[in-house]
């Protein structure tokens, strides 16, 4: 029974990571109707920057953490303005190819600069955080960080004028322009925020899966699945989906199918959910006007 509780709680911890990344995906989706396939690699790249700051520059963890988040934010803004904006009007598939290109470039460049040898990434949470056999200190810390990030985001969007403007720009860009909102920059900011969230997710997951250029592949996949299960246009759904997928992954892996087929089975299950509820649990069922 203890083991089961541990799997569930541990699943919630990784679920928090999936939830954060899923939220980043949904944010960009709501504003652009596109899924940023390169979100994982951007997070991975940011995590490597953090590693450099901690190991090569000897910075204390939290200073490196904050600097990395800031870097990721700027990086996200720049990517949107420089690489994505020129292809904004192109077909969906063309933009997907640009995302794939971004993914591949980041992965390759990181491997080139840092090599593909696996590195360890520190966890900043002291032993006292742990809860006996149920949760390791890092797992508790991860859930805390996830909740803080989610809360900050909620507060930002709900209570600040800029957050309101971003929501407006995502929902109705034409009307947003009519009240003077610079929609293009709102989009760039959205990318920046998404990248920053991704960086946090990367730094939380790296101590668990070890730092290597391919570490975010599986995570991104779960996040993608989580976002869809929650309803791709619903931020709360993304969070719910993330936690659900985290727990499912652990339970399935530990009790049902072992670790090799974990990914495949989780995906198949998710597809099963989608056959029953094609727009996810909380997504809007789009009624198209003919």
């Amino acid at each position, binding site marked *: 029974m203890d083991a089961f509780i541990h799997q569930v709680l541990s699943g919630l911890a990784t679920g928090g990571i999936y939830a954060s990344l899923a939220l980043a995906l949904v944010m960009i989706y709501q504003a652009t109707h596109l*899924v940023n396939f390169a979100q994982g690699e951007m997070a991975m790249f940011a995590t490597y920057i953090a590693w450099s700051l901690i190991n090569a520059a000897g910075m204390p963890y939290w200073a490196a953490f904050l600097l990395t988040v800031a870097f990721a934010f700027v990086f996200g803004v720049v990517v949107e303005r420089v*690489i994505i904006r*020129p*292809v904004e009007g*192109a*077909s969906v*598939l*063309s933009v*997907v*190819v*640009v995302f*794939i*290109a*971004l*993914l*591949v*470039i980041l*992965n*390759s*460049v990181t*491997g*080139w600069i840092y090599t593909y040898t696996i590195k360890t990434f520190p966890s900043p949470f002291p032993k006292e955080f742990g809860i006996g056999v149920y949760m390791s200190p890092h797992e508790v810390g991860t859930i805390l960080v996830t909740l803080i990030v989610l809360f900050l985001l909620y507060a930002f969007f709900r209570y600040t004028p800029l957050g309101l403007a971003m929501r407006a720009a995502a929902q109705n860009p034409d009307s947003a322009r009519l009240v003077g909102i610079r929609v293009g920059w709102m989009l760039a900011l959205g990318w920046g925020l998404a990248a920053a969230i991704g960086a946090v997710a990367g730094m939380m997951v790296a101590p668990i899966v070890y730092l290597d250029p391919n570490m975010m592949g599986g995570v991104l*996949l779960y996040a*993608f*699945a989580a976002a*869809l299960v929650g309803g*791709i246009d619903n931020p709360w759904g993304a969070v719910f989906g993330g936690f659900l997928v985290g727990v499912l992954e652990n339970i399935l892996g530990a009790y049902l199918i072992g670790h*090799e*087929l974990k*990914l*495949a*089975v989780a*995906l*198949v299950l*998710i*597809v099963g959910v*989608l*056959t029953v509820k*094609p*727009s996810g649990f909380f997504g809007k069922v789009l009624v*198209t006007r*003919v």
Partner: protein
Amino acid sequence: MSRRQLVVVAVLLLAACALPFLVSPYRTFQLTLVIIYAIALLGLNILTGFNGQFSLGHGAFYAMGAYCTAILMDQAGFPYWATLPVSGGVCLLFGFLFGLPALRLEGLYLALATFALGVSLPQLLKYKAIEKWTGGVQGIVIAKPEAPFGLPLKPDQWLYFFCLAVAIILFLVAWNLLRGRVGRALIAIRDQHIAAEAMGVNNAIYKSLTFGISAMYTGIAGSLSAIAIQFVAPDSFNIFVSIVFLVGIVIGGIASISGAIYGAIFIQFVPNIADEISKAAPWAIFGVFLIAFVYVMPYGIAGGIRIALAWWGRKRQNT
């Protein structure tokens, strides 16, 4: 096809037939792969380009075809050419069966479902329980076919012509299909599926059948690849195959038959070029190429050629 287009195609075919005698065996092998990829891309293009159904998992059908051929040759002693109809049929069936529930999913959701397919299949292929057929992680090795009837062709050359012949047949079938009612129905479904349904196009049947046919094409390509490479293993069919196929049709040109060929050339040779430019980060260079192509030719190479020809035609009219 206009007279001029027929001439162009005939000339290109002649050139294609001459190539294996003019280049090295390795180059011939690379060209054979281009033909195989072209068939695979045509399959994907029928589904995604012409019918608008997103697939991020076509590598799974490629793998299915390859393994079909390998297993039939290795365990049942089939001659290589006889495996093609079987693997085609199997993939057609699986594609159709997958297409049925996939009908309910649109866009992103379908992308995820096909992605799940693409990711799962290699893992399934490694599964211990079916190892005695699939050969597990080691895979299956098969023999290289020799030229029949004692023709004076080296094995690489024979393989090239065999694939070329299969490709010509498949391309002709597709061209006929897509040019007529079926093609129009597919495009109608892609662009305005509600209106299409209202006009009497049976969306469900067309969409599932399209999935089946698309899978069949890519599956046959997979079979040919098994014969060409003489080896199948689960790790050769990971998700990157599906992703590269998608990249191929976008670069080549969506909803274009010739696009399949341009795309195949791109995905076979550009990684090699990228590798030569930078040994350290070849995929980064590949990514840069991708972005450049999308910026310069958002409609793919086929689209770019069409635009260039139209521009040239207008220039000639004005002089």
